[in-house]
């Protein structure tokens, strides 16, 4: 016999308790009790070490035991057992200064970059840097392809001439700081020139990021710079085709950060303390991004809900709202930013997006127009507001006006991928001879001054 009460009981849906995990900064070093982090996410189980085949657990929640707790049940199987602060110093280990990193300098690791993906106006201009330009200068001027090439010349000791060798001196295989710095520049620049697949292949050469070879035997500190570890995690996730890897690794790093926070607090080093706290917050946000990339949107939403807004600058609220919009829940998105939670501008941005998500393009247009006027009045430039206003106009059958706005942004020196893509799309809608318009656009963009915002574009950016 079925009772309504029974049905309700049966329906009492998956409880989502407020949770704390290794990503919460204010967590006291949990030596006394295990911290349970419950993320009501489908198949999200960072504690399961996915082998190359990927272990697919479907447990609705996972328990993340603190790495700091002695006798953690997960210790034996946890990858953390091999991470820095757990690593015991094997006897006879090579001192850091004598370690040879020449396996990261093999030329076969690195791919050739073809200039054919670059539109001609960018190739044939005096704005192209000379091969002797120092890497720091290349980076400062957004010459990321040239910096990617130069870093490999230094890494593989393969400069084509003596002057270039002087500009990018070959690296000493035992100078791990410079090896890693150049490696990071290489991978980061590949990402910036839209060659992430190549970067993902090259990042495989770093192999296991937690191996003892990368650790200082005395302090247990990781020899790689923080930014390289973060990037390598994401790239290896792509390279090995295993999305869980990133989440697991971020959690590992979060545990390490807890240790550093503890150390800094003990030493009363506020600069260090703030740095590590900031890194912890960033890791939490990265986990959200990784879940979105593996298309576990519900899991991402549940995870983001557990993050605490320490900065109170509206960024986290906006991030949550954007995730809900991506998922399609406009009501939840509005809730995230209301009552000033998203900051004055953040709230307006999200509400304009909500209008567009609801198909109310007229209302959206009004909001974007007002916001654009308001920002311009205060001398604030925001490329996004202009681009979204133009997109809104296209959905209202007013593409010509949208096109003018986008061309105006180019005149103002803006050149984001999205701006170029949307303008190129409008060109395609305007004429059968869009190729000429796009080529002219490429020419205009190539005349912009190279800045740290990047300069060189690819054919794909102009849909060429």
């Amino acid at each position: 016999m079925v009772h309504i009460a029974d049905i309700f009981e049966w329906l009492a849906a998956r409880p989502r308790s407020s949770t704390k995990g290794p990503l919460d900064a204010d967590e006291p070093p949990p030596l006394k009790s295990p911290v349970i982090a419950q993320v009501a996410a489908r198949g999200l189980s960072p504690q399961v070490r996915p082998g190359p085949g990927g272990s697919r657990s479907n447990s609705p929640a996972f328990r993340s035991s603190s790495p700091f707790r002695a006798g953690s049940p997960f210790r034996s199987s946890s990858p953390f057992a091999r991470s820095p602060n757990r690593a015991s110093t094997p006897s006879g280990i090579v001192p850091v200064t004598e370690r040879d990193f020449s396996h990261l300098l093999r030329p076969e690791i690195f791919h050739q970059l073809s200039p054919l993906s670059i539109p001609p106006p960018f190739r044939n201009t005096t704005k192209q840097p000379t091969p002797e330009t120092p890497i720091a200068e290349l980076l400062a001027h957004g010459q990321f392809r040239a910096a990617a090439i130069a870093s490999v010349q230094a890494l593989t000791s393969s400069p084509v001439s003596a002057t270039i060798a002087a500009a990018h001196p070959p690296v000493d295989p035992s100078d791990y700081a410079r090896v890693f710095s150049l490696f990071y520049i290489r991978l980061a620049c590949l990402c910036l020139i839209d060659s992430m697949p190549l970067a993902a292949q090259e990042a495989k050469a770093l192999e296991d990021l937690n191996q003892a070879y990368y650790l200082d035997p005395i302090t247990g500190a990781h020899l790689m710079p923080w930014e390289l570890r973060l990037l390598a995690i994401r790239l290896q996730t792509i390279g090995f085709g295993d999305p869980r890897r990133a989440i697991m690794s971020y959690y590992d790093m979060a545990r390490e950060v807890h240790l550093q926070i503890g150390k800094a607090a003990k030493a009363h080093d506020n600069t260090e303390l703030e740095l590590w706290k900031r890194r912890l917050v960033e890791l939490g946000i990265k986990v959200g991004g990784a879940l979105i990339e593996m298309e576990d949107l519900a899991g991402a939403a549940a995870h983001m809900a557990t993050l605490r807004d320490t900065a109170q600058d509206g960024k986290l609220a906006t991030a949550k709202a954007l995730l809900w919009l991506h998922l399609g829940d406009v009501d939840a998105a509005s809730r995230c930013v209301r009552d000033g939670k998203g900051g004055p501008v953040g709230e307006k941005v999200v509400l304009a997006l909500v209008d567009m998500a609801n198909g109310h393009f007229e209302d959206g247009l009004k909001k974007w127009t007002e916001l654009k006027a308001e920002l311009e009045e205060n001398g604030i430039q925001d490329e996004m507001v202009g681009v979204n206003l133009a997109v809104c106009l296209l959905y209202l059958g007013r593409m010509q006006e949208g096109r003018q706005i986008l061309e105006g942004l180019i005149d103002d020196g803006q050149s984001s991928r999205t701006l170029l893509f949307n303008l190129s799309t409008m060109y395609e809608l305007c004429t059968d001879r869009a190729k000429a318009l796009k080529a002219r656009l490429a020419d205009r963009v190539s005349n912009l001054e190279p800045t740290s915002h990047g300069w060189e574009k690819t054919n794909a950016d102009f849909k060429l």
Partner: protein
Amino acid sequence: MSHERYPSMDPVKEPHSVSLKVLRLSRPSLVAQHTLAAPSELQSTTGAAPDDLVPASLAYRSTAGTNPDPFLLTPILNLPPSFGSAYVGETFSCTLCANQDIPPEPPATAQTPARGQSQKKSIRDVKIEAEMKTPGSASVQKLLLGPHGDDGTPAATTEATGAAADAAGAGGVDLEPGQTLQKIVNFDLKEEGNHVLAVTVSYYEATETSGRTRTFRKLYQFVCKGSLIVRTKVGPLPYNTATTRKVPKLAEDDENKQLRQKRRWIMEAQLENCSEDAMQLERVVLNLETGLRYRDANWIVSESPRPVLHPGEVEQVCFVVEEDGKGSAVVEDSDGRVVFGVLGIGWRTEMGNRGFLSTGKLGARNTR
């Protein structure tokens, strides 16, 4: 759109002076960014603080702090990069652009003495018409041409709105070189299978000495797929025993009789996402025939968040349907089957794109 054909309808062999371009207007998407920390080399030269971000790794430039970096998603919108998949229950939106596209005159040379001036064409009275051919019907449906962007405006399917489309399209537009006539069509996708959007462009091409009306038609074919599989099951619930026990058998008045005889059923439905995108269920409601009422026993009652269905996932919903006891008879078909009504399911996908389906008539076998 997967396919495009150009049946010749124009006896003139010259290229057309007007081009037609289309873009499916799915919702614009939020652009993802992967922020990168500045390399230490840069920190030493520019004085960037540790973990400062490389500006070029951000999706766009802002001094207003609107970018939620280092988060993956940003508020800047990308136009749809491709046609994507079309699903039953969604509204298909598409923009149609008729462009004055006469190739620019080549500069006059000795071989081709300035003929440009005398043959200068002007393009008048440009009109766009659109029709949709669905798999289930032999005839085509004329579509209402917007701008009427909002989802609230229904797509034209009836004759009345078809006439409105005629009226709207009646006034053609003159186009100067490089100008565009932009229209938007909306169409509610209700069937699986091949759909063909047929777009006809007509215009008057005038030179200084003569003129002619020209027409061309383009066909855009796409496949509409199922998005949601709905399985339902109805089972009888026992009479409300509590009520019957309280009422002494001999003192039955009319009201109690009605109470006792109130029939109840439990209706369960499994909703399976068979599309390739995650969807969030927005509302699942029963539209019942007279004499019946229902109680929802789903996420609203349990105050749970709206369920998200990833591709291949199933959500089970449940309703208690009962006679409302107001005296009006429930609808029964010829087999004595009680007809409930229909189940309506509304969902949202990426960036709020809407879908809505309703089932056929559901019902329960007569258990009396």
